[in-house]
């Protein structure tokens, strides 16, 4: 089963694969992100209710979607790593975690900034923002756990186990926060519902969503390659890479 996947379990091929995919992802990300942002910020019509402040949606919604997406993909990598004992999948967990944490942080910040003109307060205990905050704590937990271990192999395995446990809790947290929010509905907070989107507002949003996906993929490739290097430090192909990089460094110095 999945015969085509097995060659990529070998570290070196996975390392080269990452660096082969990198240019595609980064170019796609650059194009879609720039196009989507300019289209959304400058050309899309303003919202009849919120005016131009709604344009923050082009950054808040993609980061919120991919903060959740990154966590689930991290958990899937953890699962693959533990169930099928594929080393690189476990390494991917710590490759994705910081990127996911950054996206969650961005979703929180843009959500708070967007909330200021709408509700007059920097922070509102709205259901979506609260579960986003809890997701940030889950990410910090995975990163902190990984860094507290000395031996990087056990660290990667522990982080993937925590990621799996976390992903089971994400829907639970989401619905309990949702229920908690409706419970206190009387607490005079207007429901933060998605504005009904007209098509020419939707296209830039889809572009940005794709853009952020490609950025997530590109950075993850970079970080995964780095994790593979750290993990296989003793292997001959990494030693060769280090030799080659040091000769470059010395030649650079000689050249100067």
């Amino acid at each position, binding site marked *: 089963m999945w015969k085509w996947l097995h060659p990529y379990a070998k570290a070196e091929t996975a390392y080269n694969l990452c660096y082969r995919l990198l240019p595609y992802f980064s170019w796609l990300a650059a194009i879609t992100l720039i196009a989507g942002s300019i289209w959304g910020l400058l050309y899309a019509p303003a919202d009849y209710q919120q005016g131009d402040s709604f344009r923050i949606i082009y950054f808040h919604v993609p980061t919120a979607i991919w903060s959740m997406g990154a966590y689930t993909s991290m958990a899937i990598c953890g699962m693959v790593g533990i169930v099928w004992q594929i080393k690189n999948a476990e390494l991917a967990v710590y490759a994705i975690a910081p990127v996911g944490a950054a996206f969650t942080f961005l979703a929180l910040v843009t959500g708070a900034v967007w909330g200021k003109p709408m509700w007059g307060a920097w*922070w*509102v*205990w709205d259901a979506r923002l609260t579960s986003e905050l809890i997701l940030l*704590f889950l990410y910090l937990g995975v990163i*902190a756990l990984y860094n507290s271990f000395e031996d990087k192999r056990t660290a990667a395995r522990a982080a993937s186990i925590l990621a799996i446990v976390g992903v089971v809790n994400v829907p639970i947290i989401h619905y309990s*926060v949702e229920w*908690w929010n409706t419970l*206190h509905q009387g*607490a005079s907070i207007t429901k933060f519902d998605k504005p009904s989107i007209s098509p020419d507002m939707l296209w830039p949003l889809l572009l940005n969503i794709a853009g952020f996906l490609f950025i997530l993929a590109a950075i993850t490739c970079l970080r995964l390659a780095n994790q593979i290097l750290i993990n296989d430090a003793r292997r001959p192909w990494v030693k060769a890479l280090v030799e080659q990089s040091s000769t470059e460094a010395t030649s650079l110095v000689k050249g100067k």
Partner: protein
Amino acid sequence: MNSNLPQAQLSYWIAFKAIFVRELKLAWQKPSQIIQPMVFFLIVVTLFPLGISPAPKTLQMIGPGVIWIAALLAIMLVVDRLFRQDFQEGTIEAWLLSTVPMSLLVAAKLLAAWFISCSVLLLISPVLALLMNVESQVIPALMLSLLIGTPILLFVGAIGNALTVSLNQGGVLLSLLVLPLYIPVLIFATSLIEAASFNMDYSGQLAILVSMLLVSCFFAPVAIAAALKNTVN
């Protein structure tokens, strides 16, 4: 090597600096000392709106008290592992045998611990004030009370840690010993913030907190030195 040459007289300032620098290096080696209390502080504060209610009015009322209790618990976390590792590795014994008085070395370690772990709590307290919907004019009073209160908590807590460092289940006993001593600090700090929220003059509570700080700054290291000398034998 003529060994009857009198030792270079070890000035107290050099020893103080040596311990301070050592603590900073340790914090640089293990950044969890800085991040753990901060994240704990953040999470404990976010629990309260989930537990009680997100209504801005109630949050505003309980805000300062919640932030102070969370800071107190975060410092309890810091205090719990102040001398534990040094005791197990024998560093405490070696400090006792140095020519510099032990209370000075302990004071250096506590000062470094404040800069490493507690100053971060101070820095993120405005963010938490935002979370708890605290009015903006109260935030300076909140930060001032934390600036003066956290060292008191650290110094007093360190005495508890020094007393229970050789027992392995020290954590539980530590909170029993130290929490009663924290109560006056909590009372005066929260009343200071309350006075600020009605923009009354809070210099009275401030004076009491500062006097507590001075008392604990001078007597805690001496008590800790005695406690460590006692547990070492």
